[in-house]
C-alpha cells in the first residue's frame, strides 16, 4: 500500500483513531502493530522475516556492546553486527534483483521485492554505531527497537531517522491537537499534489524517451532529461511530505529531507539540501571516520574520503553500473570541489557568481541523473549522444500529450514555484494566519489534486 492508494485513507483514519484510543505508554505497541500490518500489505512475508532478523541483530549486539567495557571487544562486536546487517541487505538485494532468483516460485511468494529493507538496515547500522560511540544507551526492549526500524510513515523511503531521537518520541508520542491535525493534513495534501500532479505528469515526458531511446533525438531528449530532474524531486519530496504529515497525525515528528536542492550553488551545497537524512547518514558514519583516518593527508584526504563515500552511495541504490556511475560522478564532483576550494582563499560570492554556481550545479546533477534513470549505461549513452542531433522525430511525444496537457502541466509547475518562493516570506505566514485564506488554499489544493492528478502507483525511490 502506497500513500496515494485509495485504501491508504481508511488505513490512516483507522491508525489515527487507534493511536488516539491507546493509553500513552502503549502507543508504541499500537504503532508497531499498525506498521507490521502496513508492511504486510506488500504481500511479502519474507520482508517481515528480514525485519525481524535485522531487529534481533541490532538489539542483541547493541546490548552486548553496552555491557562490554573493553574497547577492542566493543569494536569487534560493532563490526560483527554491522557485517551481519549488511550481509542480510546484500542477500535480499541479490535475491530480488533481475539477475537473482526472479524465476523461482519461492522468491515470488516470499520475497518479490526488497522494499523498505535498505532503509531500516541503514537505521539499524546507525543505531549500533551510536551505541558503540557512546552517543546513546542500548534500547532494552527489542519490540520498541523494531518499532523504530519499521515505523510505517518512514518505512518505504525514509526519512532516515536517528534512534536516539525517534525512540524518545516513541516512548510517549504526543497526540496532535486541532492545529497539529490541520498542519498534518496540509503537509500530506501538499506532498500528494507534488507526487500525483507534478511528478507523475512529468513522468509522461520522461518514460517514453528512456524506454525507447533510439526513437528520439534533440528537443524531446533534452525535455525528458530536464523533466526527470524535476520528476524525481517532486516524487521523492512529495513522498517525504506525505510521510511527515502521516507521522504528525500519529504524534511523531520526522526530519526534513529536502530544502530547495536545485537552488544549491555547488554540489557540496546540493547534498546539504537533497535527501538530507541520507547525506547526514553518509557524513556521520562513512565520510567522517574516513576523513579523520586520513587527516594527515589534509585536503587530499578529505577529497579522497568524499570520493569513496559518494562512490559507495551509488551501490546502496543497487548493484548496477548505472548507479555505480552515478555515485562515481558525484564522488568526482565533490572531490574536485574540495580540491578547488583548497587552492583558493574563500571569498563571499557575488550574485552573478551564485547564479552561475546554481546553473552549473543543476546541470552537473542533471547529467548524473541520466545514468541514475537509464535502465542501462548503453541507454544513457544513446540519449546523451542524441541531444545535439536536431530531429523532428520526437514531435509525436508532445503531440500525443496535447496542448492542453502541456499548458496544465506548465501552469501547475508555475503555481508550485510561486508557493515555494513565497513560503519562507513573512507575507505567506501573515496570509495563512487568516482562516478564510487558509481554507480557500486547502480547497484549491484538494481540487487541483482531484482534477489534475496523473496517478501512478509507484514511487521512484521506493525501489531502493
Amino acid at each position, binding site marked *: 500500500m502506497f500513500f496515494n492508494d485509495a485504501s491508504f485513507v481508511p488505513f490512516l483514519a483507522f491508525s489515527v483513531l487507534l493511536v488516539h484510543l491507546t493509553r500513552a505508554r502503549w502507543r508504541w505497541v499500537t504503532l508497531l502493530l499498525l506498521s507490521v500490518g502496513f508492511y504486510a500489505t506488500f504481500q511479502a512475508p519474507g520482508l517481515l522475516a528480514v525485519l525481524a532478523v535485522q531487529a534481533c541483530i541490532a538489539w542483541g549486539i547493541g546490548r552486548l556492546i553496552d555491557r562490554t567495557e573493553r574497547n577492542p571487544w566493543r569494536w569487534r562486536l560493532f563490526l560483527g553486527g554491522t557485517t551481519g546487517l549488511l550481509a542480510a541487505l546484500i542477500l535480499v538485494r541479490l535475491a530480488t534483483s533481475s539477475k537473482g532468483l526472479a524465476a523461482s516460485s519461492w522468491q515470488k511468494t516470499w520475497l518479490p521485492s526488497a522494499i523498505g529493507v535498505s532503509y531500516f538496515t541503514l537505521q539499524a547500522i546507525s543505531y549500533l554505531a551510536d551505541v558503540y560511540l557512546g552517543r546513546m544507551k542500548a534500547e532494552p526492549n527489542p519490540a520498541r527497537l523494531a518499532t523504530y526500524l519499521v515505523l510505517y510513515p518512514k518505512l518505504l523511503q525514509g526519512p532516515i531517522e536517528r534512534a536516539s531521537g525517534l525512540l524518545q518520541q516513541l516512548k510517549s508520542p504526543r497526540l496532535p491537537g486541532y492545529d497539529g491535525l490541520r498542519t498534518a493534513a496540509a503537509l500530506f495534501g501538499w506532498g500528494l499534489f507534488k507526487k500525483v500532479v507534478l511528478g507523475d505528469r512529468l513522468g509522461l515526458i520522461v518514460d517514453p524517451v528512456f524506454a525507447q531511446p533510439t526513437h528520439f533525438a534533440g528537443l524531446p531528449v533534452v525535455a525528458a532529461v530536464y523533466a526527470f530532474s524535476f520528476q524525481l524531486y517532486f516524487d521523492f519530496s512529495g513522498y517525504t511530505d506525505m510521510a511527515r504529515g502521516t507521522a504528525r497525525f500519529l504524534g511523531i515528528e520526522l526530519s526534513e529531507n529536502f530544502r530547495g536542492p536545485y537552488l544549491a550553488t555547488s554540489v557540496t551545497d546540493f547534498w546539504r539540501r537533497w535527501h538530507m537524512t541520507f547525506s547526514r547518514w553518509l557524513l556521520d558514519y562513512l565520510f*567522517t571516520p574516513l576523513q*579523520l583516518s586520513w*587527516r594527515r593527508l589534509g585536503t587530499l584526504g*578529505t577529497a579522497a574520503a568524499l570520493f569513496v563515500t559518494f562512490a559507495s552511495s551509488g551501490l546502496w541504490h543497487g548493484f548496477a553500473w548505472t548507479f555505480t556511475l552515478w555515485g562515481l560522478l558525484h564522488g568526482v564532483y565533490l572531490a574536485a570541489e574540495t580540491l578547488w576550494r583548497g587552492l583558493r582563499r574563500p571569498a563571499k560570492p557575488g550574485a552573478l557568481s551564485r547564479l552561475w554556481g546554481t546553473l552549473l550545479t543543476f546541470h552537473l546533477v542533471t547529467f548524473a541523473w541520466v545514468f541514475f534513470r537509464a535502465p542501462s549505461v548503453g541507454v544513457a549513452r544513446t540519449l546523451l549522444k542524441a541531444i545535439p542531433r536536431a530531429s523532428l522525430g520526437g514531435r509525436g511525444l508532445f503531440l500525443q500529450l496535447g496542448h492542453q496537457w502541456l499548458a496544465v502541466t506548465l501552469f501547475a509547475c508555475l503555481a508550485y514555484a510561486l508557493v515555494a518562493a513565497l513560503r519562507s516570506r513573512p507575507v505567506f505566514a501573515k496570509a495563512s494566519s487568516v482562516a478564510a485564506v487558509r481554507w480557500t488554499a486547502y480547497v484549491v489544493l484538494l481540487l487541483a489534486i482531484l482534477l489534475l492528478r496523473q496517478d501512478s502507483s509507484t514511487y521512484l525511490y521506493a525501489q531502493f
Partner: protein
Amino acid sequence: MISDKLKKVILGVLELDDWTFTPETTASMVPGWDSLSHARIISAVEDAYGIRFQTRDIIRLETVAQLQALVDKAG
C-alpha cells in the same frame, strides 16, 4: 576550562581573530568549523601538542571541552 593554547590553534585554523569558548561550545556554534575543517583542526591540535589521537576517540567528540579533555589525557 579551554586553554589559551588550544584556543589559539583552533582560531588559527579557522582564521578567526577571536571567539569565546565555553565548556558547552560545540563545533557548529563556531563560524567555519564544519565537517571539512574539523580534520584540519584535529591535525593542527596534534601537531601543536606533539600527540596522536585514536580515530574512534575523535569521532565521539561533541564539545570543545571534550577535545580539551582528550588533549589533557594524551599529554
